[in-house]
C-alpha cells in the first residue's frame, strides 16, 4: 500500500488526464474484452467506442481515478491486441 500512497503524493504532469484515447483497436473487439483489457488498471467510469467508418478502431476510456489512467496509459501504449499495436494518448 505504501507504493500506492507514494504514487498518490507524486504530482502529475499537466497532460495526464482521466480520459485516454486509444487508436488501432481491432474492429471486432467486444465489450468484455474492452472492460477486461482496460479494467485491469482501475475502475472504469465510461467507455465510448467509435462506430462509424471514420471512428472505428478508436475509443475513449474514462477512468474514475487519474492515477489509474496514468497506469493504464503507461502500460498499454504499444500493447499487442490481436496483433495490432495499441496507440494510447491522453485526451485533451
Amino acid at each position: 500500500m505504501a507504493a500506492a500512497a507514494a504514487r498518490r503524493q507524486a504530482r502529475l504532469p499537466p497532460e495526464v488526464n482521466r480520459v485516454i484515447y486509444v487508436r488501432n483497436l481491432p474492429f471486432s473487439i467486444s465489450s468484455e474484452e474492452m472492460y477486461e483489457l482496460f479494467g485491469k488498471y482501475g475502475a472504469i467510469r465510461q467507455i465510448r467506442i467509435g462506430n462509424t467508418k471514420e471512428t472505428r478502431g478508436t475509443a475513449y476510456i474514462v477512468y474514475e481515478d487519474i492515477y489509474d489512467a496514468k497506469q493504464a496509459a503507461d502500460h498499454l501504449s504499444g500493447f499487442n491486441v490481436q496483433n495490432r499495436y495499441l496507440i494510447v494518448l491522453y485526451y485533451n
Partner: protein
Amino acid sequence: MTPDQWHADKAAREMYERNRPLSDEELDAMLPGAEQGYKVLPPPAGYQPI
C-alpha cells in the same frame, strides 16, 4: 500557515480539481457523442470494478 503547507494545500486542491467525480452531463459535454460517431459501450453483465 507556512509556505510549504500552503504549497501542499495548493497541490492537494489542484489534484482534487483534476480528480473530482465527473457527472454524465460533464462527460457528454467533454466527449464526442453519437453524432460524432461514438457510442457508449455498456459494461458486460458481470463487470466488477476493482
